[in-house]
């Protein structure tokens, strides 16, 4: 099970890393973040449904998908939480899945707040 205890020590987004990957295009990063939040809204709904019916395959798949999307945008903290969600699904740990879902939501809010103060355009 991945460790999510020390998330606070990490930045919500590693601007250097992600901008390096997408050629330093901050406008494009903004576009991608919009897609990310839109996708998260849909996945959050699906995740709540999957947890309520204890569909661990779906929980694991959603965790896997969020992990990939977060990695693409260098959202290191969210990537770790998504990994723990995927692992909880694989191990059929309902309580851990619920906990991961809550942490995920908390981290999304943290990221949003961080981006309001530190928009991508200011990262270069």
């Amino acid at each position, binding site marked *: 099970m991945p460790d999510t205890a020390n998330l606070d020590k990490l930045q919500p987004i590693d601007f250097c890393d992600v901008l390096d*990957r*997408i050629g330093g295009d901050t406008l494009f990063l903004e576009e*991608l973040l919009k*897609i*990310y939040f839109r*996708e998260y809204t849909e996945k959050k709904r699906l995740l709540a449904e999957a947890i309520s019916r204890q569909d661990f395959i779906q929980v694991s798949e959603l965790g896997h998908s969020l992990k*990939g*999307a977060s*990695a*693409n945008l260098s959202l290191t903290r969210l990537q770790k939480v998504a990994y723990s969600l995927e692992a909880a699904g694989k191990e059929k740990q309902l309580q851990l899945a619920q906990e991961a879902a809550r942490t995920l939501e908390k981290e999304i809010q943290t990221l949003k707040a961080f981006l309001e103060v530190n928009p991508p355009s200011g990262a270069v």
Partner: protein
Amino acid sequence: MKILIAEDDPISSRILQKNLENWGYETVLARSGDGAWQALRDEELRLAILDWMMPGMDGVEVCRKIRRRKKYRYTYIIMLSAKDRKQDIIAGLSSGADDYMTKPVNFLELRARLQTGKRINDLEDKLLLIQTQLKDLASRDGLTSLWNRTEIAKFLSEELERGQREKKPTGVVLVDVDHFKKINDIYGHAMGDQALLQVVSRLKRKVRKSDKIGRYGGDEFIIILPNCGLTEIRRIGDRLRLAVGKKCIKTELETVQVTVSAGCATSELPGTAGADKLFKVADGALLKAKGQGRNCVVVAGQDREPARKQINA
């Protein structure tokens, strides 16, 4: 060049799309394995980036299905996955992927790897082109570029089958240059060849696009006429005869009078079932034309006198 991005994660897909379009590719997007499979029906899509994990059919399954296809040209596939263990890479490549990249993608590396894919596809195109050229070369007569004996026999069989299906007759005209040996003996083979080329050019001008003309032997030509019955074939045979003999042929050395004899037959006649039999009947008619003094047309199974012998008839 078109490229398929089969990726269910919209962020990965969008990043790939933007990079690929910046590099000059025309992108086609699919969000599932089934979508990818549908998209790959487009024969122009010969480069594909497939994510392993997709809803429904996964990338590995899509890959296997692509490799089982027979009629399509080669599709170069790069498999993308977060799975980075040795056994995953082996499994991905074993499914038929040409290359394997782990996520997150390094785009400089992807660009270089796509160049490899383009090179492989270009090589296949060159090979296919050479194959077509060689096939064509093997089907043609070296001097006249007409279909050779083997090829024209194949066309005749195919045409007879088609005619039978569509209940339409197939005609065959055998054309032989009169006294061609004399031309060769007197003026030499080089001039004989020039004369033959002019005969061919005149014959070609008088046949339809749907007709097939081949060189059957030294100075003997065969014309296959789809949908041609006994009522038309004499007229066509005579048209061919006149096309050759009406005007003298000018070669580099000499201007010579060249005439041809023609033997005609159609699949309506009894005893013409099959290409060999129809050919034999036409050959019999040609022999008759030769026996009747040359520069004339004989239609098998018809008792009429051959077409008049005057060159300008």
